[in-house]
């Protein structure tokens, strides 16, 4: 289910991209992690980079947040090139997948550490700290050591750190990692609030249900952007229905279905997938045609996983 872009978000979305990525390649030794990325991330939205492990989304994230030097291509964040590291860092807030909290310090002390790194002090620090802690419902936990907080609360403190210096773009790497369902919901409420306040939120994820909540998403695989669009528009590309088959000999079954019914059959591993606007009417005909060699047949509306499979021809494996 897609979240409709709210009126406020539409208002603050402009033509100027928050992040512009052009012709980016990246290698780790012999391994090519990014193979020509071109991406425009709109301002004032939640933008998700969706892909399985090894798809290159975390590499792209590290390049955007200036943790790694750019090898080839160009990236601009909020108008500044990543070559100007300090300028970009001042404009972005980052929440890494790995926790960055010092567990031996309290929530307040962790925030103060972050403030010192971003040039906030005195009255401004106190004011901003109260604001972000209030927004994330952490006021009553501010004097607790971070090692005593639950995973969800720690994540909220991470968000508070990322927001403290009023970033124009908030980058989150796999933000739902380690969170229970309630904490995930809380996280998304907080992210929506940030977008309503004019912050562009960019996150990486390998979870379809998380990517489905984004306003726009880019599907990545093998170091390339496979497709970009709203979750609804990407699903719409596959049509209204999808039939999935498990058969004894998928290669033969695919050829047979193509020749008899003129259907476009895609084989993914041992599974056959057929996109069609009227899937139900095909079920009995396919079952009759394949007979006992058919193990199972499933009909459904395409989800983001189906989009990924249709675009890449690969199963989504983490």
């Amino acid at each position, binding site marked *: 289910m897609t979240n409709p872009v709210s009126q*406020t978000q539409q*208002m*603050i979305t*402009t033509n*100027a991209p*928050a992040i512009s990525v052009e012709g980016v390649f990246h290698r780790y030794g012999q391994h090519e992690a990014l193979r020509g990325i071109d991406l425009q991330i709109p*301002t*004032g939205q939640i933008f998700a980079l969706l892909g399985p492990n090894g798809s290159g989304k975390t590499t792209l994230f*590290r390049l955007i*947040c*200036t*943790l*790694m*030097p750019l090898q080839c291509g160009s990236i601009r964040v*909020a*108008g500044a090139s990543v070559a100007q*590291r*300090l*300028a970009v*860092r*001042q*404009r972005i807030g*980052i929440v*890494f*997948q*790995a*926790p*960055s*909290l*010092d567990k*031996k*310090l309290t929530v307040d*002390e962790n925030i*103060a*550490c*972050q403030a*010192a*790194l*971003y*040039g*906030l*002090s005195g*009255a*401004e620090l106190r*004011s*901003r700290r109260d*604001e*972000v802690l209030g*927004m994330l419902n952490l006021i009553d936990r501010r004097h607790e050591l971070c090692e005593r907080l639950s995973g969800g609360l720690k994540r909220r403190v991470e968000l508070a*750190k990322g927001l403290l*210096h*009023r970033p*124009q773009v908030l980058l989150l790497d796999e933000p739902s990692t380690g969170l229970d369902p309630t904490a995930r919901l809380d996280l998304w409420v907080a992210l929506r*609030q*940030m977008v*309503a*306040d*004019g*912050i*562009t939120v960019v996150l990486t994820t390998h979870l379809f249900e998380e990517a489905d909540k984004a306003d726009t998403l880019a599907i990545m695989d093998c170091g390339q952007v496979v497709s970009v669009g709203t979750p609804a528009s990407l699903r719409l590309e596959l049509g209204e229905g999808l039939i999935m088959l498990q058969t004894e000999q998928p290669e033969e079954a695919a050829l047979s279905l193509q020749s008899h019914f003129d259907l476009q059959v895609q084989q993914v591993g041992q599974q056959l997938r057929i996109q069609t606007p009227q899937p139900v009417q095909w079920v009995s005909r396919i079952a009759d045609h394949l007979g006992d060699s058919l193990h199972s047949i499933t009909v459904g509306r395409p989800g983001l996983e189906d989009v990924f499979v249709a675009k890449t021809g690969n199963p989504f494996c983490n």
Partner: protein
Amino acid sequence: MSALTSPTDPASQASPVPKAGDPLSPQPWEPAVASGWGAAWMLARREWTRFFRQRNRVTAAVLQPLLFWLLFGTGLSGSFVAPDGQDFLQFFLPGTIALIVLFTAIFATISVIEDRREGFMQAVLVAPVGRWPVLVGKVVGGSAIAWVQAVFFLSLVLVTQTVPLSWSLLPLLALMAALAVAMCGLGMIVAWPMDSTQGFHAIMMLGLMPMWLLSGTFFPVPAVADQPLGWGQTLLRWIMQANPLTYTVSEMRSLLYPPAVADSAVLLTGSVVNWSVTFVFMLVTFLLAGWLMRGSRKVDWVA
């Protein structure tokens, strides 16, 4: 979070969030200016706070050198005769102070590896302050802890009257501070490229402990004046002369004990050379650590 952009909020006026509709408008966005010194001071304070919140670290830091000093000093006193007639408790005292500083500096800088592994360092490295505040913060914080520990130990020693109370203890405090900075710099050189504490321990046992043992802490530098040296002792003398820590320990010895007691056979060189070597050692380790920390490397990010 409407307060973020509230016109009544002085903080918002100082660095306004881009307004709806023109987040990247021609009006320049003015962030707060991050100060490297502020960040370094915060990182130093963090070292301090973390140290005192780990009680086992405080206890070990105080008790271990004390035990070393008492056990070695008492156990070896019968089998050791210093050239100047000191007993081993007295002879071993400068070495124990150096050991306290060395150990504490090691534990302070080894935390860089933990900071990396736990993700804290990753967040620091993407802050708009560069990397030098990390070095300054770790070195200032770590050496302050090492110095205070050494001073605490020295106070205990003064109570036992192993060393006489004299004005020469004041320059000793300065020397201890310089040594602490040098050791933290050395610790950063070792720790920064490492991705595991096991690797650090290996270097510590292979490099740092021998450096301490071969600095005149446990036995004096073989003296040429006494008798012709064999090749082994000649080699040992060369190594100990090449070890910068030897000069610091030598100066500590001369500051702890009056000139009549601290015989020239125990001391390697004069004070000017000792102080100079100590300060050059401090500067070289600090600058080398800074040079090694520039640029990004694989250990910077948490997988």
